[in-house]
Every structure is written in structure tokens, then in C-alpha cells.
């Protein structure tokens, strides 16, 4: 059972990291970024290319995965989402745009990166035994880094001026503009931050998992599940949702037949949302 709990911790931390980026974008732009998984995947490939193909250090690749995918997000905001949002009658259209982007990125990645599964050399070797459970050192490094990233992001959003402005923008764009905030710049930055986090999580997790061009959609769907559980648009909700899903998945696999685990998780989520339509803490950026 220790192993199951440790699994839940690792899965939960990685999920929380994945859920953060999508939440940021959702809360500031009201865009459900269906391309999140694809950006995650690209982040993984960025690290792979820097680390394995170009032979540079993993950590350098990780920084690059944040920057490159973040810039990609800035471009997406400036050239795709903003012009469309200015002219749409029904804001759901942005969902369609995100979906188109997802398909585009995925098919492009298939041509550029090929169909194979990729991995990077281990960032740490050895395995720690804890009360009879096994925890590879690589995983420890990754979840520590992930936890630090999550904490840093929360601090940034919660206590810096820019973070405060991001939160404000999520609630009322016009009122935010009236405080002297340059919305154009800030929303591009916010979008970039969200996608950058997607890239970063993909880049970080490639160290213990692996990445391939088709991984995106499944990641996106899981990310949606997490933010639904936690409450769409709430940072702490995303983190909580990540941990809850990680826990459900690990414990579910341990106690139930594998084929029923996700069916039951889906049913739990459906029932839960019926009872609590806004997730655990559904308010924008509480």
C-alpha cells in the first residue's frame, strides 16, 4: 500500500503540473486550450532534441522547452486567438480554434519528429526504498522540481504585481485596463505562461516517462478531467484536481480491475459534478 500511495503522490504531482497551464489560459482567456496536450508533447521533444540530438544538458533543454513553447503560445494568442475573439459572436468558437491548432500541431509534429517514441538518458540513477516501496531517484528529482515549479508559480500569481494583474484580468478585462494594465501585452504573456508551463511539464516529464507525437489528445483529456474536478479557472483547484485524479487513478488501479478503473473514475466525476457543478473550488482564481 505504501507503493500505491507513493504512486499517487508522483502521478498527482505530475498531473498538477500539467493542469496548471491549461487553467491559467482558461481563466484569463476563457479558452479551453485543446492544444494543451500537443504543447506538452512539443515540450518533450524540445528537451529530447537539446539533450539527445544536440547533446546539451537536460536542464538547459528544460529551460528551452519553457521558452520555445511559451513563445509559441504568445504567437498563438497574438495571431490566432486575439483576432478571432475580437470578431466572434459566440465565444465557444475559440474552442474550435484550439482544436484546429491541436490537430495542426500534432500532424506537423508527426512530419517533423517522426512516429517514434522518444526518451532521454536518466537524469539520476538509483532507487530509494521507502517502507518497502520503491522510488527511483529520477522520480524524486522530478517531483521535487515539479513541486518547486508549482510553488514558484503560485507565489508569482499570488504575490507579484503581474500575477495580481493576471488574476484581475481573469475577472474583468475592462476594469483591468482601467487600472493602466496593457491588456494586449498581459494576455499574450498570460497565454505564453500557460503554454510555456505545458511545454515545461512535457519537458520535465520526458525525464521519467517518454514522449511521442500522438500523446497530446490523451493528455488534454486528462487535464480537462483535473480542472473539472478542481474547478475550472482556479489555480489551487487545478492542483487539487491533479492530485485527486492521480490518487483515484493509483488507488483505482490497485483495487479495481483495470478495465473498470477509468469507467468508474468517469462516473465519479460525472456524479461529483452533478452534485457540485463548479468542481471542488469553482471560482475564478480563488
Amino acid at each position, binding site marked *: 500500500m505504501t507503493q500505491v500511495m507513493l504512486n499517487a503522490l508522483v502521478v498527482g504531482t505530475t498531473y498538477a503540473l500539467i493542469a496548471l497551464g491549461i487553467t491559467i489560459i482558461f481563466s484569463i482567456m476563457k479558452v479551453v486550450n485543446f492544444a494543451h496536450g500537443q504543447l506538452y508533447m512539443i515540450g518533450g521533444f524540445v528537451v529530447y532534441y537539446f539533450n539527445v540530438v544536440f547533446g546539451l544538458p537536460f536542464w538547459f533543454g528544460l529551460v528551452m522547452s519553457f521558452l520555445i513553447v511559451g513563445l509559441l503560445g504568445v504567437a498563438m494568442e497574438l495571431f490566432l486567438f486575439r483576432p478571432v475573439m475580437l470578431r466572434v459572436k459566440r465565444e465557444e468558437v475559440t474552442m474550435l480554434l484550439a482544436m484546429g491548432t491541436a490537430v495542426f500541431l500534432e500532424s506537423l509534429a508527426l512530419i517533423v519528429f517522426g512516429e517514434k517514441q522518444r526518451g532521454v538518458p536518466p537524469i539520476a540513477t538509483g532507487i530509494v526504498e521507502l517502507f518497502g516501496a520503491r522510488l527511483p531517484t529520477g522520480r524524486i528529482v522530478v517531483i521535487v522540481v515539479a513541486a518547486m515549479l508549482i510553488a514558484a508559480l503560485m507565489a508569482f500569481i499570488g504575490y507579484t504585481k503581474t500575477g495580481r494583474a493576471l*488574476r484581475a484580468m481573469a*475577472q474583468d478585462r475592462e476594469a483591468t*485596463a482601467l487600472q*493602466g494594465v*496593457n491588456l*494586449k501585452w498581459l494576455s499574450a504573456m498570460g497565454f505564453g505562461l500557460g503554454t510555456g508551463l505545458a511545454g515545461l511539464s512535457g519537458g520535465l516529464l520526458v525525464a521519467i516517462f517518454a514522449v511521442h507525437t500522438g500523446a497530446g489528445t490523451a493528455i488534454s483529456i486528462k487535464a480537462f478531467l483535473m480542472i473539472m474536478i478542481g474547478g475550472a479557472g482556479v489555480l489551487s483547484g487545478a492542483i487539487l484536481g491533479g492530485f485527486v485524479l492521480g490518487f483515484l487513478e493509483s488507488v483505482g488501479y490497485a483495487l479495481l480491475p483495470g478495465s473498470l478503473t477509468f469507467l468508474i473514475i468517469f462516473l465519479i466525476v460525472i456524479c461529483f459534478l452533478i452534485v457540485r457543478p463548479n468542481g471542488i473550488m469553482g471560482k475564478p*482564481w480563488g
Partner: protein
Amino acid sequence: MSAQFSIRDLAVSYGRVRAVKGVSLTAGEGQIISLIGANGAGKSSILRAITGLTAPESGEIWFDGERIDGKGPDQIVARGVAMVPEGRRIFPFMSVRDNLLMGAYRRKDNAGVASDLEGILTRFPRLRERIRQQAGSLSGGEQQMVALGRALMSKPRLLLLDEPSLGIAPIIVREIARFITSINRDNGVSVILVEQNSRMALKLSSHSYVLETGKIALSGPSHELAENDDVRRAYLGG
């Protein structure tokens, strides 16, 4: 009295709807002027054009000898214009403190920000009690105080107020009125006040403009307008 602020021939349109059709007005430094007029007369549209939320169709807006129309809200705010928008528009899921600090977004002098925050909390003791509370859970009057305080945090030299008494209990309306006179008197902030409560508007301001369907129908010193028969009938209830 120098004209710190002036508008010339401003026109604002929403699609095919022409909301403001050639309005000119001026405000001197340290003056309170008011805009009154029927519903849909275009009062809010003028304020939105001044802060750059809505791009004017034509006309000029001058502030401190500089033309500011066509600039973005961020630049206009940076020049010392602040607005309390219609319906308060506070950030409901942020604490009162964060709401107030948002007002100081443009400012770099952290010490000054801290002391101004202190000043506002002293002026509105009720906000001090609720400093950590989410602003959305405050009552309407308290929210109005947050909106006013937030606008002041940017240290404006021109404050635009869009119907600050809307939906506010009479006792609080008086408090807001006192507040407007005091910041004008003590801090020398110029104010453009848009009000349906014409009595209040004419009392507080030195100069008033009466707007009808996007045009200025009447203007003059407020105490004179208050005596005008047409104004009395249409806006002061007899």
C-alpha cells in the same frame, strides 16, 4: 482657471448606433464638472472615450496639453486619469487589499503606494475591517468604496466617476458625496461626475453639462442650471 482637460467635437459610435454626436467640454484644474442627461444620452460613452476603452470616431481629447485620444487605456491612465466605471466593476474574487493595489499597478514608488493605501483605509475604516475579505462578498456600498479607493490608488489628477450613486442607499450616497468634495478639496483632483442623481451632481459640481441624445443641450455654472426651469422640470423633479 486653465483648461486642464478638454474635449472637442467628440463623436462615438457603436456599429451603426451613434451614441455621441459632437460634444465639446472643458474642465479646469481642480474643478468638479458634472454631466447629466437622460438614459442613453451618451454620458458613459463620453467617459469610455476619454479613458480609451472605446475608440472615438472623431474629435479630439486633450489632457494637460497633450492629445490623448487614440491612445490605449494603459497610457491614458499613466498620464493621471482614473475612472470608476458604471456598475463599480471591482474584482469580485480578489481581496479588498488586492483590489486596491491593482489601482496602483502603474506606480513604481512602493513607499508611496503603501502610504496611499494607508490613507484610503483611514478614510474608509470599513474597508480596513474587511481588508482580507473577497470584494465580491461586500455589500453594494462597500463595493463602491473599493472602486473609489482603487481609482485613487493610481494618484490621478483627473477622476472620472460614472454614476457612483447607482443602487446605493441614501445614507451611503451622502458619504460618497462627501468623499468627492473632500478629495477634490484636499488632494486637488479634478472630477468629471456623471450622475442620474442630478440634484447631487448640481450640488457638487461647479459647472455642468446637460446631455441629450448625444449632444450638449445646455451648459453653465451648476448653481445657474439648478435655477433653470427646464432643468428643474426634467432633472430635479419639479
